[in-house]
């Protein structure tokens, strides 16, 4: 469909869009190695801000909290989301209510879910902390795990389940020895994706973590730092956060080729 003239125009558009998408992030990453640490002047390569960051107890604690929230919520969401995906696939025709229910956390504005959970926990007199953040994160993680596993189930050959049953395996054995191994890459990919999302999530954590400093997560820490002002340490933290998300995402992609929801 493209003659040479159009092709050149298309390449130009792509170039501009990709520059727009990547220049801001690249500038941050570059600045994290700037000795002066301020954006206006390059004063030489240095890792000293990395050193400063790793000596910062607040940030380390926030990172620890984030890992706990990410690991636990991703684990719970992976178990529930996988079961849900298999369940939906089996009862295909009755799935409409469920489908709406899983789709909802993806479209409800973050702030609405966040304040809804805050009110809910407060009225029930639940003490806020990392555990409430975890409960909240499972809600949207669940949706993503379910989507990834369902994508894999679309190409699942149900005749092997019948074969397994014919050979005398019980339902649980079939699930454990046949269905789960086939789905394993998608399940792990979904879990990693959930972990990435949870590590990066800010608004819901901000409202459900409560006021104590002990339950601050990394994005909450980043938000506080940004509001406080531009300091070189944020560049380093931003770089590490970007790197971390991308590595996890790449792993997830590798395990489950083309498994990103919507792709």
């Amino acid at each position, binding site marked *: *469909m493209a003659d040479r003239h*159009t*092709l050149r125009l298309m*390449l130009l558009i*792509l170039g501009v*869009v990709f520059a*727009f*998408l*990547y220049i*801001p*992030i690249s*500038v*941050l990453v570059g600045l994290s190695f700037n000795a002066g640490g301020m*954006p*206006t002047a390059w004063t030489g390569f240095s890792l000293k801000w990395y050193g400063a960051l790793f000596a910062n107890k607040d940030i380390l604690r926030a990172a620890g909290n984030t890992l706990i929230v990410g690991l636990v919520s991703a684990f719970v969401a992976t*178990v*529930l989301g996988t*079961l849900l995906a*298999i*369940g939906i696939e*089996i009862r295909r025709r009755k799935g409409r209510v469920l489908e709406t*229910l*899983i789709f*909802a*956390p993806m*479209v*409800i*504005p*973050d*702030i*609405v*879910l966040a*304040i*809804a959970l*805050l*009110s*809910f926990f407060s009225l029930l007199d639940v003490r806020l902390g990392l555990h409430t953040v975890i409960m909240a994160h*499972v*809600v949207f993680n*669940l949706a993503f795990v379910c989507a990834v596993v369902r994508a894999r189930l679309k190409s699942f050959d149900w005749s092997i389940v019948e074969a397994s049953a014919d050979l005398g395996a019980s339902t649980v054995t079939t699930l454990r020895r046949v269905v789960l191994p086939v789905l394993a890459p998608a399940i792990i990919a979904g879990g990693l994706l959930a972990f*990435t999302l949870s590590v*990066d999530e*800010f*608004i819901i954590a901000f409202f459900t973590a409560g006021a104590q400093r002990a339950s601050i997560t990394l*994005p909450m820490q*980043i*938000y506080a730092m*940004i*509001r406080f002002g*531009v300091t070189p340490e*944020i560049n380093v933290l*931003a770089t590490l956060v*970007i790197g971390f*998300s*991308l590595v996890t*995402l790449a792993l997830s*992609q590798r395990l489950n080729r083309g498994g*990103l929801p*919507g*792709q």
Partner: protein
Amino acid sequence: MQDRKSLVLVAPAFAWLTAFMVVPCLLILALAFFRRGIYGGIDYTFTLENVAMVFDPLYARIFLKSAWIAGLAASIAAVVGYAAAYAIAAMPRRHQPALLFFAILPFWSNYLVRTYAWIVLLNREGLIVAIARWLGVEGALPQMLYTEGAVVLGLVYNYLPFVILAAYAPLSRLNPEIAEASRDLGAGGWTTFRRVILPITLPGVATGFVFVFVLSIGNFVTPALLGGGQFQMIGNLVYAQFLTANDWPFGSALSMVLIAVMLVLLTAQTYANERASTGRQASGGVDG
């Protein structure tokens, strides 16, 4: 029998979503109709005051402002995102998956970090000012950070990958023979695009537009960071009602409006999509 087994599989997730999503959202719905307690908190007497207050000119103005900013961001993202998706679809097939992957990759990094990157670029001691100074045109630069434009820019930047993804789906499924047929019938490139390709692929862009609009209108982070608290959007207002003013009933009433806007837009879009696809099937049936 099989139904009962599958029920066991879906029940835990169903219970979790009910407890931590459905019930809290219904709670918000209910809170909007109660009075605010004298010392904050909730006084459980029914009132329509909160809902009425939403329509107070003071707040109505904030709604219009939010809708304006969200609409602007969604429109720009739709145009740029469509152009990018179109360009990706025009590239050789084997390169398309990689291009698409790299187009949505930034979306998977932290939202705050991506927003902060723009503070680094736009602030008075930032990179753009430094470059302008080096070029000797510093004086020509207006204030960039803490403006409405910065907020729109931040929203477009953060949500653009969404539109690219949404617009690429129909573009990649486009049958090249349709464009050929249009050309054989004497239509020029621009006419083919406007009369043939655009109508078929528009639902994808509409999906992207709606998503960006919905995500933008309730956003409070970008206005807080890139707008510098210069102006309020609904998200900031909801935030303030819950965390500063301690007026939960009014905050709930405001967020109900957000949900209403979201529901109306998504329903309209689903309806439009269905109509578009049945229309296409009907005309396809004539050929068959």
